């Protein structure tokens, strides 16, 4: 969603072979809800998109129901991203499905060099049943651990295949590998779209502070004054592990409009030139986000 003219947000999705990346991508495409997603894959080898979603396919692009597309980027990711950002048909979000040998942070650095797109977050998927064994693999151990460490969000998939006790144990183990990234347990790749793609921000414009019946717990912060935007972004990213995502706009003390993006422990702030109302939407994990949990933050915001 190129709302602020800063470029199309790019999420890197990775995880070891069999973690369920393809299932998750298909789930997001089925639940795109009008958002135009572009999925970039290394290769078309084993077809990454469920057949019933495909409207048309040629060697380079698969057209998907709802205006989404899937392309393979081969060995030239930056060219593929440039092409997507220059397309007539506007794209709201780009999802790069990285291969099992990928270094997701290196992909994100490359994304950062391309104009017209904006690094969003690194989402790493782990199979609840096999991740710990895979992380001990003779050859792949350090690659897998590095992927987990690079995550802004960790998604623990296939929790239906293990006991609750095992989910707890594996979650603690994951937290040891990456103490900053929120861990989101799911089944069958069914993850809340907004958590992965962060399209929560239009909620500000829809109804202000508003809580969906289903979906993740949401809290919208509405600063009433100019604030220290950097401190706010840092605080949301570092001090609130139960916030998976936050996104929105605030005005800094010099009067500039700033886009704030938080994905797990990663945050970024960018100056935007458009006149947009202030408001930051936070998506929570687990228990409902309530204003009383945010005393320090509210103090900071002078709300």
């Amino acid at each position, binding site marked *: 969603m190129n709302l602020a003219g800063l470029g199309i947000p790019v999420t890197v999705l990775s995880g070891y072979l069999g973690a369920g990346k393809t299932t998750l991508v298909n789930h997001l495409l089925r639940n795109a809800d009008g958002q135009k997603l572009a999925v970039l894959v290394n290769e078309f080898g084993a077809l990454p998109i469920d057949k019933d979603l495909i409207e048309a396919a040629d060697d380079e692009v698969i057209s998907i129901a709802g205006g989404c597309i899937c392309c393979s980027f*081969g060995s030239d990711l930056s060219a593929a991203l440039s092409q997507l950002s220059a397309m007539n048909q506007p794209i709201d979000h780009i999802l790069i499905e990285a*291969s099992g*040998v990928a270094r997701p942070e290196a992909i994100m650095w*490359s994304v950062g*060099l*391309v104009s017209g797109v904006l690094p969003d977050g690194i989402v790493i998927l782990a199979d609840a049943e096999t991740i710990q064994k895979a992380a001990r693999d003779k*050859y*792949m151990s350090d690659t897998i651990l590095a992927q987990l460490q690079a995550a802004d969000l960790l998604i623990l998939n296939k929790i239906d295949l293990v006991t609750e006790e095992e989910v707890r144990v594996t979650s603690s183990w994951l937290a040891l590998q990456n103490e900053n990234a929120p861990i989101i347990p799911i089944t069958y790749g069914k993850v809340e779209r907004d958590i992965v793609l962060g399209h929560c921000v239009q909620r500000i414009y829809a109804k202000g502070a508003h809580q969906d019946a289903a979906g993740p717990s949401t809290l919208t912060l509405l600063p009433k004054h100019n604030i220290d935007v950097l401190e706010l972004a840092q605080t949301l990213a570092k001090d609130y592990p139960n916030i998976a995502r936050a996104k929105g706009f605030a005005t800094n003390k010099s009067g500039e409009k700033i886009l704030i993006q938080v994905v797990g422990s990663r945050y970024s702030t960018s100056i935007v030139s458009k006149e947009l109302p202030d408001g930051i939407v936070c998506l929570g994990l687990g228990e409902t986000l309530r204003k009383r949990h945010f005393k320090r933050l509210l103090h900071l915001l002078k709300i």
Partner: protein
Amino acid sequence: MGKIRIFSAKKIITMNPNQPETTHVAVREGRILSTGTLEELAIWDDYTLDETFHNKILIPGLVEGHAHVMAGALWRHVYCGYFDRADPDGNMWQGSKTIADVIELLQVAESKLKYPALPLAGWQFDPIYMDNQRVTRSDLDQVSATRPVGVLHASGHILNVNSKALELADLLRPGINHPGIPLDKDGLPTGELYGPDAIGPVSKYVGFDRASMEGDADALRAFGKICVRSGVTTITDLAARITEESVDKMLEVTEHPTFPARIVPLRIFMGASAKDTIDLVLSLKERSTDQLRLGRIKAVADGSIQGFSARMRWPGYFNGAPNGLWYTLPEQLGELYRLALANGVQVHTHTNGDEATEMALDTLAPALNEVPSVDHRFTLQHCQLADAAQFRRMRNMKMCVNLFANHHFYWGDEHYRLTVGPERARRMNACRTALEMGVPMAIHSDAPITPLAPLFTAWCAVNRLTLSGRVQGDGEKISIQDALYAITLGAAYTLHLDGEIGSVEIGKKADFAVLEQDPIDIGGANIKDIEIWGTVQGGRVFQAKKL
């Protein structure tokens, strides 16, 4: 039936133990009808005697088992290397010994360019030999402020560009955050780009576009000329992105009556599934001709040692750098091996570090148990750090190896003090161990990474001298006879072509390297200095001076 042409020579080294040396070879229909004395050959039929080579030495046409057509493509850019080197047309380019030399070379080339928007690129720049001095965009802005300028380092891992190139790539701005793109005090990139991720977005603006680097028709023709100058008659293009369409072009070039080399392109395993890759090469294989041999695959397990991206076993890199990168998952490689074995398709696998070698061995072993194969000749390429135990496993699995002998000379000193340390530097590219363990072996240049010149590669394997003049790994030296075998029959064997090429004997292709001196007489210390007159390929004579 065609006419018989008998070539006389001062000496023909045949690599055929039944008749190691002779003086005459009869050629008909591009093949060797017979070797022996003129009297023996005259019995066949009427002939014409060709005495062009009466004072030359003929050896089997040399076989380069690991090179890239890019070696031809690069010469359209400015050669900025440290060593003197001849281009495909035979012009000798003097090595650049200082940064100022390189800048001046580029300025001269720039002044000859017509259109102001044309990019200017240099290649093979090697500041390792210039105290590792850095080159920034302000240096290259002296070459041109208006057209994009870039200089690729010999390692291929660093690209220096000017301000215009950064501007075109939209990188001449503050806020760049990339570990491969250092910033100046002013917050703008310095113009030094480290690693493929940083180089990728800029290289096309300075003229290193992917299509031309992977070899168009002109590059292939230049590649052919380099082959004649180095005595090569059969050569691989290892890791090409071959498609049905690019094969049309390759067929057109290689079928031309004056094209002097047999090209063996291997399709890279990247960007397509194992099954799609196998299906593609099986269909390409049917389009093979005598001069273009399709139907093989190259997989890449890891990166490079000097780029610290090779996968190393314990204790890792000597300087403590973190372990390198996997380029292919073991699971994907295993699937490729199984499908390839089942379909009779040969796979060559790039493994630089010893952990990558171990992974390839561990992956092929179960695939071979599942799909037994009597003569697969799966080959490990580079395989620079394999130890004796790994060579024994290769032998037991009937694998071949193609070692990167040129590395000792160009980077041996770096390996000794920086990448792997003294002990492993001494066993790198362990030719002697490979032969003693009974692994069929070739040696290679990986041109354009190092220059295509199999006699130089043989010299490296025989002498194991580094650039600073140290012998590194005395125990891994091989004899001149073994080295000659490696660059003829040895390399042919890794391509299943040893029944057709690699020795001078009846029934084989009439492929010869024509030398001014005898490699055995001149001795191992001087084999790299042998002058090459040219080649005979498929019975056709190619003189280097007249290309």
